[in-house]
């Protein structure tokens, strides 16, 4: 019961924050509503017993990405931008595209609803916590993708510095 109440609380945080983020005129306000959404997603991770991802979500997303976005908003002066229209001219067409995507998702979910009537979850013999098992799999089976991800991050660091620098 408690977990159901928490789920709906986090769902409200996620969806409300997302709607407000998309509709706010001021970019700083949008970034702050994005924080609410990301906190809700972190709560959902905790409900689904993904403790490591909960910590990663708060440290990386809220502490890293949103901070970076706020820095960029402060760097580029958006005062003139805030007085201009929020949505561009083709917003009706874009909204129609989004409605089509939504209808497709609803159709696929409804037609595949039978597949969600799964057998009760297998309660496997759990040795250690969720984070421990995650580390076991990540550093044995998925070691190569892990290393490739580190190369990707290195490329991103170098790339963003090259992009943002005035003269190389």
């Amino acid at each position, binding site marked *: *019961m408690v*977990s*159901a109440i928490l789920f709906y609380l986090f*769902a409200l945080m996620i*969806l409300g924050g*997302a709607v407000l*983020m*998309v509709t706010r005129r001021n970019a700083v306000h*949008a*970034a702050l509503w*994005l924080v609410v*959404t*990301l906190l809700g*997603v972190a709560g*959902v*991770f905790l409900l*689904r017993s*993904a403790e490591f*991802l909960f910590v*990663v979500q708060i440290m*990386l*997303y809220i502490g*890293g990405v949103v901070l*970076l*976005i706020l820095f*960029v*908003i402060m760097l*580029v002066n*958006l005062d003139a*931008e805030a007085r201009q*229209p*929020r*949505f*561009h001219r083709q*917003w009706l067409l*874009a*909204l129609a*595209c*989004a409605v089509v995507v*939504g209808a497709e*998702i609803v159709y696929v*979910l409804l037609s595949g*609803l039978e597949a969600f009537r799964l057998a009760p*979850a*297998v309660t496997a013999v759990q040795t250690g916590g*969720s984070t421990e*098992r*995650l580390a076991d*799999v*990540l550093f044995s089976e998925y070691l190569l993708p892990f290393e490739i*991800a580190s190369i990707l*991050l290195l490329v*991103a660091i170098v*790339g*963003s*510095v*090259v*992009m*943002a620098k*005035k003269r190389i």
Partner: protein
Amino acid sequence: MLYPITTIHYVILSAALLLIGTVGFLTRRNIVIILMSIELILNAVNINLVAFSERFQAMEGQIFAIFVIAVAVAEAAVGLGILIALFRNRETVASDEIDLLKW
């Protein structure tokens, strides 16, 4: 229907978040908010991955979520670097004013 929270609830939540992100991505003019909408879409995917990971007691879902987060961080860093370079050259962050390639 509403009370025992099952995997389908998480799937519906994730689909709703993905749709809101799509609307923001397609309709907003400000490129910073377009980048934030991409983060919303990636978070929707992560909710799905984690929900199914717990459902099947398999760690692969969480591992993919970690990779998605790594890619999202890299994308945000490079995207904001491009945005700063763009603002230095064109003095605008509105997506419909960047029309150099438009005929």
